[in-house]
């Protein structure tokens, strides 16, 4: 029963992790760690509650742990070994027009909210619960993330005159 429920969520966890990390191997590692932790804490899951929110919450916490941990800079061996820059690209906008790469330029916390909204279509309240943050924080991260992504995609300088949101 639970196996089916978890199996059904794996593709979604992978999609989200891929979008969040931008790297296939790293994303699948994160999914694997998430599932292992989920099984080891299965007794904490309350039957009838939202399995997906629970799993995404576990993934979020693992990610936070990862980011806190000092780590060695690593490189995927199998992919993107060829992207040696041949000219300065910071302001050139061409590379950044690529959405995936633009997404990688968002702060982690904004990217998370943006992706949970866009890909998972979670409600703001569910996102607040999953990430364990106030709903106002969800809204401000969403607003800033969307605007930042827009300006990167349009090659504009960052605009700072956003309205303050409670």
């Amino acid at each position, binding site marked *: 029963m639970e196996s089916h429920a978890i199996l059904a969520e794996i593709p979604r966890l992978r999609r989200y992790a891929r979008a969040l990390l931008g790297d296939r191997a790293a994303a699948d590692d994160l999914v*694997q760690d998430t599932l292992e932790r989920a099984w080891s804490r299965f007794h904490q899951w309350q039957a009838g509650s939202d399995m997906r929110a629970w799993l995404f919450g576990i993934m979020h916490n693992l990610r936070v742990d990862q980011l806190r941990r000092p780590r060695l800079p690593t490189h995927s061996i199998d992919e993107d070994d060829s992207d040696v820059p041949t000219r300065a690209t910071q302001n050139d906008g061409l590379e950044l027009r690529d959405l995936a790469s633009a997404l990688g330029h968002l702060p982690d916390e904004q990217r998370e909210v943006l992706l949970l909204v866009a890909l998972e279509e979670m409600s703001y309240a569910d996102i607040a619960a999953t990430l364990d943050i106030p709903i106002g924080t969800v809204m401000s991260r969403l607003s800033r993330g969307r605007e930042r992504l827009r300006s990167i995609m349009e090659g504009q300088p960052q605009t700072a005159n956003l309205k303050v949101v409670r």
Partner: protein
Amino acid sequence: MNQLQITEADLQAYVDGALTDARRGEVEDYLAAQPDEAERVRAYLTQKQALRSLFNPVLDEPLPENLSVLASPPSATAVDRLRKPLLARWSLQRIAASLLIALVSGLAGWLVHDRYPPAESLARTSPLPRRAAVAHAVFSPDVRRPVEVSAEHEDQLVAWLSKRLGTPVRPPKLGALGYELIGGRLLPGNVGPVAQFMYQDASGQRLTLYVSTENAANQDTAFRFAQEGPVNVFYWIDGKFGYALSAGIDKSKLALVATAVYDQIDHK
């Protein structure tokens, strides 16, 4: 409509279809009067759709095995299978480090409480049977990774150890006595690398053969017996080679195995 009432949160919720019908109408009126804001909202809608087009194909990718097995509670076998990539990633170094610490502490412990005076023991190297017994005690109980290279790859094992020891070494065949090779590993000796071959019988009893090439004195010896705690050791020196056979079995049974080992080794 009072445009001041439209907040940034309303605009975001409009993009996400999270408004009530009434509120959505108010937002649309506001956007009709504010072309810049309308353009911004359109950009967000486009952005959201683009993200979905970009990442939705991941949903249809076949699951790698290490993930699909995790759809069920990890059983013993499933855990084994999915642990492999983990091992490759990082645990191996940790295991190796902890084994090395265990080995070094074991050796240090033996040296310190030893019959040798402490000052002298630091300068001395520890004797062959003791090193062999410690290596046996450290590695033979290891369920998951008792050897570095398993007997399935015996050719590679022989080639590798021979290369590292700088001289041909080959594990004797002890199948006639009920012991099958399970693999081997390289270990630090007193001044350089030594080899350890591990065998196991049908009951799971393990036996290790420690092969050192560090014997500079070239004094051949007959079989000698030593006991280090629960581990019995037969050892002998043959040219530059030192051999030590360790196991937690009877002296008489171990002697039989030691004889078989001795018989199979090329004597110079």
